[in-house]
């Protein structure tokens, strides 16, 4: 199997690794780096369970190769948690019970994090549209929409006060 060397910053840490050409980024993160917080629900780009951030954008880790991450900054749920970047989303998900089994949650949070950055004024319908690439079988989505709407509102109020 053809091998390539990549340099990548994962959760703030600079890494240099040899990876096989065909290895998906998600498998690299899960299997080589033991960052098992990102999940695999379909491995064909539909469910969103593998959503991570690459250079600040939410992407599907199962559709990207590890070699394509060469030179990139990758943030997984572990990094987003430790930096505190999504602490308010996590807290709101907790309070609204916006997760049941939690399997979709890391991907859902990565998508939600992008939404609250890009669309601070999103309404319920826009929230629903934005997270429509992330499948959740447990919650029925209502509580997830509640949690994200709450964070948007809180952030807006804070911004206004500042």
């Amino acid at each position, binding site marked *: 199997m053809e091998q390539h060397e990549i340099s990548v910053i994962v959760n703030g840490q600079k890494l240099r690794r040899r990876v096989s050409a*065909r*290895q998906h980024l998600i*498998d690299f993160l*899960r299997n080589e780096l*033991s*960052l*098992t*917080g*990102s*999940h*695999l*629900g*379909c*491995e*064909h780009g*539909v*469910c969103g*369970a593998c959503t991570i951030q690459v250079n600040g954008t939410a992407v599907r880790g199962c559709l990207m190769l590890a070699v394509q991450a060469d030179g990139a900054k990758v943030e*997984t*749920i*572990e990094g987003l*948690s430790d930096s505190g970047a999504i602490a308010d989303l*996590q807290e709101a*998900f*907790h*309070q609204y*019970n916006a*997760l*049941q*089994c*939690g*399997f*979709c*949650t*890391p991907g859902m*949070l990565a998508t939600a994090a992008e939404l609250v950055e890009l669309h601070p004024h999103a309404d*319920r319908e826009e*929230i*629903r*549209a934005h*997270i*429509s*690439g*992330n*499948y*959740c*079988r*447990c*919650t*029925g*989505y*209502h*509580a*997830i*929409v509640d949690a994200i709407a709450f964070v948007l509102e809180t952030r807006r109020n804070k911004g206004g006060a500042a």
Partner: protein
Amino acid sequence: MSSAPPVSFFDRPNSYIGRTVPRPNVKKLLQGRGTYVDDITLPRMLHVVFVRSPHAHAKIVSIDRAAAQEMPGVIAVVTGPELAKVITPWVGVLTHMKGLKSAPQHAIAIDRACWQGEAVAAVVAETRAEAEDAAEMVVVEWEELPAVVDMEAALDAGTPVIHPDLGDNLAFRRELVTGDVDGAFAAADHVFEEIFHTGRHTGVCLEPRAVLADYQPAEGKLVAYQATQAPHMIQNLLAKHLNLTESDVRVVCKDVGGSFGIKVHIYPDEMATAALSVLLKRPVKFIADRLESFVTDIHARDHRIKGRIAVKNDGEILAFEIDDRTGIGPYSVYPRTSAVEANQVVNLVGGPYKHKAYRAATEVVFQNKNVTCQYRAVGHPIACAVTEGLVDLAARKLGIDPAEIRRRNLIPDDAYPYTGLAGLPYESLSHHASLEKLLKLMDYDGLRTEQAELRKRGIYRGIGLASFIEVTNPSAAFYGVGGARISSQDGCTIRLDPTGTIICATGVTEQGQGTEAMIAQIAATAVGVTMERVRVITGDTDATPYGGGTWASRGAGIGGEAALQAGKALRQNILTVAAAMLQAAPESLDIRNGTVVDTDTGVERLPLEEIGRVVYFRPDALPKGLQPEFVVTRHYVQKDYPFVFTNGIQGSYLEVDTETGFVTLLKHWCVEDCGTIINPQLVDEQIRGGVVQGLGGALYEQCIYDDRGQLVNGSMIDYLVPMAGEMPDIVVGHVVSPTASSELGAKGAGEAGTAGAPGAVMNAINDALQPLNVSLAAQPFTPESILMALGRVSAKVG
């Protein structure tokens, strides 16, 4: 004693019963630090990938694995006959399902594959990628056999018999007649009939099925890390079929990414994984990929039901009659069987109503498709859609408002106890209170006005109602009496540690419902401590009392009651010791917020950590004859009824675009009665999640097979599931009628949402299309099927 004890245990000072408390165990999941099976790596661990049949029915002529064995990383390529040396086959029958038959099923097919997706060889390698590469090199020579695909033709004389030893393709038949059915139909002013179809669909847990089996040859022990709802059931079956001592098998179930009934069965590939670990003496991991999930996770709800309703001019329902047929694949699934769903349909049709006559027949047939079995709300969504579809049909034809016909026919709220026509007793239901509450929540009259206004403008909106009953808290009558070692009782072991922490080990399991939070709330209440002091252990056969696990909405009702009784007993034991230490009467003391207090005055006397310190490290300071018992186990089984029934009603408001056939769900309501509510938020979220699964079946989800038995939409791209954009907000309301069969009074809420949603949506669509004289009865209600009903397109595309 001056002050009377609280009226109910739940009125105690720090009661958590009825309180929304955020789940203590989900912080790790929010940080991606849970432990799902695929997150576990063991030293020397191998990965298995299965070679699966591409045919619905075919003889295995030969398997050539020479090339596969040469591939990098490959440890073994194993066929059915080889694996059969370490694992015995099984037959999915229960003795109380009279006449139910099935054929022996092997972990890996021996000489024939009976559905597309059946495993015929296992490839074990150092990595999953290597196993997948090698699996492609296994060459199987097939001889295709005629496939039985159409369930309607399964019993026809010209149709091949899938298992010749069984004589025919009939797995199970049940008939039920109650009351004077013919008389009722003869006396009716009208008889209305409809043929209903419920689409075959599947659970699509976001985490695929997963097991990591670790056989430890020195001790003859097997540890199975498995995503399952029923660890003790799995323990029993692994031991039985691998010929191990049951206590040498440990099933560990950490975080599970959704289950919904999908993960409560034995799957051949999971059993094969355990057998491979025994054979190879190394840990072996199997994670189903999504494509194989679609062809191997149990399917469900593949029913055709001819239904009839006999009514008077005033809408009085005299009788229901159904003729049901379902195709279950080539085997009855082990050990719960594939006849339960049809049996439930027979038990539940007409359930909410007070008619006096009922006839039902069901035929469960074999076919060469993937197996079907119990998926969330087993049989309920089918029975509810048929019943409520017939009631609305009658209402439409008679010009009676759907709410009014229900008012006239639902069993009165003061009629309980009441025995349903299938012979099952209902302890106390609240159909009318639920209906009235729903109508108010919906602003039913307001919606009707809006609907009429919009109709004038060519906008077709519909309102649908669906009442339902739901089976919860099953007794041993469900499985135990049929010979399956699936426990209907559950236990809770609770202990006080030296620091004043309460540790509860429970036999019920967590797959996201909030089981651990619910148990912690009950234990905290029963002992008298804050939630922060409670730890809950689930999902480990070595560490928890023997129990059934989580299914049939039994977690709160059964597991919760055991926790309540265990907590109360521990509290009593703590008070006995505290009384000795304080030289007071135990009855004069209580535990509140982790401190022993005087019951009357609330004055704090002794913190639990001080009692813990003395009991564990200075027992010499205690009176001689006093032996503290700070570990207590209590069990509970529901024995008063075969099942405890709950009830509820759902409402759907939607718009049908008659140009495109698209259905837009505008809003959905559910009022349900699960008895005592332990955590309102968790109940509401169970309902909402359940509703959306029901909506999926009603509108999108279907496993589509072609006439050669090939699943044509077995990927997440082609098999549609509800996504956030299409789903409505869901309003949940409650009526509370606790069951007297337990002190806790909880009935269960996990399946109510799924039970009623499809019926409500069907009725709403038909309500919307009523002015066009069109009605539909075949789920899923796709744009294509709606356009066909409207006559806008003529034949199925493709």
